[in-house]
C-alpha cells in the first residue's frame, strides 16, 4: 500500500500544471464557454503532440503506454485548470471504450487517428426522460437492414457531439434485453445536433438520429450484450469525473485558504477566526478523502480489478463532499465569490456539472447497498 504518486506521475503532474497554467487561463476558459465549438483546435493539437491524448493507450497504436492511473493524474490537473474541450469525450468516453471492447481491426483503424488528435469521439448514451443509468432507459434503437443497421432515436446531454467525428451510440438492439454499441459517423446523413445551454458552459448536445445507417462492421463489442460494456464505460467515466472534481476541489481549497489569510475584517485576517478555521479544516478533510477514494477507484480500474463498490463509494462521496466544500468556499469568500469577476464560479459550476454526470449520490448509494447484499 502506497498513497503517494510515483516520481514519473509527479513529473507528469508538474508538466501538466505548468502547461495548463500557461495555456488555459480563465480568460481562455471564458472564451471557450462563449464560443460555438467550445475548444481550441490549436491547443488540441498541442495536447496531442505532448502525448496527452494517447497517454493511456498502447504504443502500438501510437499511444504512451501509460496507465489509467496516470491518466487520472492528468484529469485532475485538467479539473484544476477548468480545461474546456473534448478531451474527456474523446479519450475517456471514446478511446478507452474502443480499447476495451473494439476488435483489433477497429482499434487499428480508429485509435491512431484519435491519438494524433485528428478525430474527435464521444459517447451517445443518455436520452430525454433519462433519470438513472440503467439499461431500461435506452430506447433509441438499431434495426437490422440486410448488411447494415439503421439507428433512430434521440440522445440528450451528449458532450461535444457537435464537433465529434464519431459517436459511440448505445442503442436497443432487442426489445427487452438487447443493448448494442455502434460507432457512428458523426457527420453522416440523418443526424441533427442542437447545443444546449449549460451551467458549466460545456457543450452538451441533443442528437437526433433519423434513420441513420451504420455498417455492421461498426458494431463495438458484442451485439445485444452491450450493457455490461456500457456499465464499464459508466464506471470509468464516473471515476474520470471524480478526478476532475478532485482537481476542482484542491484548487478551491487553496484559493480559499489564501483568501482567508489575506482578507482582513475587524483588523485581523478572517482565517484567524476559529469558525473560519474550522470551515477550512472541514474542507481539507473533504478534499483529502475525495482524493483518496477517487484514486483508490482509479487504481483498481487501472489494475483491471473488479471495483463496482469502490467506484460507487468514490462518486457518491466526491459529489457530496464537493457540495460541502463549495458551500464553505463561498461562505468564506463572501460576496466577491458570487460575482463573475472572481474565478471561484468557474469551479462551482464545473464541479456541480460533474456531480450530476454519470450517476449521483443516491444512484451510487443504491449500488453500494447491492454490493453490501442489502
Amino acid at each position, binding site marked *: 500500500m502506497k498513497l503517494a504518486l510515483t516520481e514519473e506521475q509527479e513529473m507528469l503532474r508538474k508538466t501538466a500544471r505548468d502547461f495548463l497554467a500557461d495555456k488555459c487561463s480563465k480568460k481562455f476558459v471564458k472564451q471557450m464557454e462563449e464560443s460555438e465549438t467550445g475548444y481550441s483546435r490549436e491547443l488540441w493539437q498541442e495536447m496531442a503532440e505532448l502525448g496527452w491524448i494517447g497517454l493511456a493507450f498502447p504504443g502500438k497504436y501510437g499511444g504512451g503506454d501509460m496507465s489509467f492511473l496516470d491518466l487520472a493524474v492528468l484529469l485532475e490537473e485538467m479539473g484544476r485548470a477548468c480545461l474546456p474541450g473534448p478531451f474527456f469525450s474523446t479519450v475517456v468516453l471514446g478511446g478507452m471504450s474502443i480499447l476495451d471492447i473494439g476488435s483489433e481491426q477497429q482499434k487499428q483503424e480508429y485509435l491512431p487517428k484519435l491519438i494524433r488528435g485528428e478525430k474527435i469521439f464521444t459517447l451517445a448514451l*443518455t436520452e*430525454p426522460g*433519462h*433519470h438513472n443509468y440503467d439499461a431500461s432507459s435506452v430506447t433509441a434503437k438499431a434495426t437490422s437492414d440486410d448488411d447494415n443497421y439503421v439507428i433512430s432515436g434521440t440522445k*440528450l*446531454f451528449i458532450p461535444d457531439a457537435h464537433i465529434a467525428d464519431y459517436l459511440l451510440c448505445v442503442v436497443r438492439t432487442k426489445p427487452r434485453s438487447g443493448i448494442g454499441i455502434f460507432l457512428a459517423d458523426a457527420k453522416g446523413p440523418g443526424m441533427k445536433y*442542437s447545443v*444546449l*445551454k*449549460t*451551467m*458549466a458552459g460545456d457543450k*452538451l448536445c*441533443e442528437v437526433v438520429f433519423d434513420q441513420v445507417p451504420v455498417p455492421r462492421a461498426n458494431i463495438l463489442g458484442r451485439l445485444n450484450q452491450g450493457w455490461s460494456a456500457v456499465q464499464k464505460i459508466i464506471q470509468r467515466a464516473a471515476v474520470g469525473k471524480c478526478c476532475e472534481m478532485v482537481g476542482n476541489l484542491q484548487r478551491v481549497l487553496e484559493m480559499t485558504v489564501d483568501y482567508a489569510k489575506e*482578507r482582513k*475584517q*475587524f483588523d485581523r485576517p478572517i482565517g484567524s*477566526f476559529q*469558525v*473560519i478555521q474550522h470551515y477550512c479544516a472541514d474542507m481539507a478533510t473533504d478534499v483529502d478523502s475525495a482524493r483518496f477514494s477517487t484514486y483508490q477507484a482509479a487504481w483498481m480500474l487501472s489494475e483491471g480489478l473488479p471495483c463496482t463498490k469502490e467506484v460507487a463509494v468514490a462518486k457518491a462521496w466526491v459529489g457530496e463532499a464537493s*457540495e460541502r466544500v*463549495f*458551500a464553505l468556499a*463561498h*461562505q468564506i469568500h*463572501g*460576496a466577491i*465569490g*458570487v*460575482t*463573475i*469577476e472572481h474565478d471561484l*464560479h468557474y469551479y*462551482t*459550476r464545473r464541479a*456541480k*456539472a460533474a456531480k*450530476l*454526470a454519470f450517476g*449521483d*449520490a*443516491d444512484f451510487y448509494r443504491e449500488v453500494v447497498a447491492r454490493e453490501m447484499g442489502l
Partner: protein
Amino acid sequence: MDFSFSEEQNEFRREVRNFLEEEIRNGHWEPTCDAWVQGFNPGFTRRVAQRGWIGLTWPKDYGGQGRRHIDRLILTEEMLRYGAPAACHWFGDRQVGGAILSFGSEELKREFLPRIVKGEAYFGLGMSEPGTGSDLASLQTKAVEDGDYYVINGQKTWTSCASFSEYFDVYARTDPEAPRHRGISEFIVDAKSPGVSRIAMIDITGTEAWNDVFFDNVRVHKKYLVGEKHRGFYQVLHQLDYERSGMERLMGNYPLFDAIVQFAKENKLSKEPVIRNKLAQLQIEFEVGRLLIYRVALVMEEGRAPNWESAMSKAYSTEFEKHLAGVAMDILGPYAQLTSGSKFVPLRGMALHSYLGSKGYSLQAGTTEILKNILATRRLGLPTS
C-alpha cells in the same frame, strides 16, 4: 397563544392572492425566484401602491395605512409565494422608509414617505464598500461639511437594484478622528446628483444583480442627513435588523418549491421513497422557518425592533433556501444544469438560478457567521471573544 389568523387577516390574504393571481392571469409577469430583489416592474409597483400596500404599517399621516406588522407579513408572504416582481419598491418599503420614520426629520418624512407609498421613489442601499464586508464600521466613504451641504466621496458596492434606484441611502464617515463606530452619518442622496455613477456587476447566475456606485464630490443638502450626525452606525444596525427580518429570507425561491413538488408529482418521482422523504423534509423545514419569522413580526407588533430574533430567522432561512435549491437540482438530475432559455430546460431554469443564487443569501445583510455571533452574545449572553 394563538397560531391562527383573524378573519380580517384571512380576508386580506385572499385579497392579495386574488390580486396576484389576476396579475398572472393577465400575463403581466410570471412567478420568478428572487423577484423581490430582481424583478423590476414599475407597473406592478404602481398597481400595488394603488391598493395602499406600500408602507402598510406606516402612520396614515404620511400616507401609510397604520396596519399591523402581521398584515405586512401576510402581504409579503403572498408576494413571495407568487414570485411577484416587487423590487422597485422593496427597499423603500422594507427599511429606508422605516429608517426615515424612526430617525428622520419631519421635513424628510414629508418629502419621502408619501412618495414611497405611491410607488414613486425607488431606493437603493449605500452601505457596503469593497473593503468592508461584515465589518461595516470600517467604511471609507467620506462626507465633509461645506456650508449648507455635505460633499460625499467614495465607493459603495453590492448595491441591489441600483441601476434603476432614484435615491440611495448612503452611510459616510463624517468624523474621521472619532472611533470607527462613532463618526458615521446617514444621508439620502438623489441618484441624479452630479458625481453619482454606477457600474453593473454580473453575478454567478448571470443576472445583473448589483452595482458599484461611485460618489465623486457629490453635494447633498444638510436636510438630507437622516437622524443625528455621527450616529449613523447605530441607525444602520437598527435598519439591518429590519432587513433580516422578513419572509424574503425564507421564501425568496418559493416558486421553485411549488414547481419542483409539481414536477415530482407529474413525473412520478414523488413515489420514490428517498425523494418523498427529501421533499417532506423541505416542507417541514419550511413550516418551522415560517414560525420563526412570524415570531419576528410579533416582536415588531409589540413595538420592539427585531434583534437576535431576526438574526435567528435569517440564518435559519438562508440554509433552508440552499437546501431547497440543492434538493431541486438532485431531483432534476442532468436537466438541472440547463440554463434559462435552453432547449429542454425544466422549471424555466429556476432550480439552477436558485442553486447558484442561494450561495449569496447567507452573505448579504449579515453573514451567517455574524448572525450566530449576535445570537450567542445578544440572546445567550456569552462573552465576546
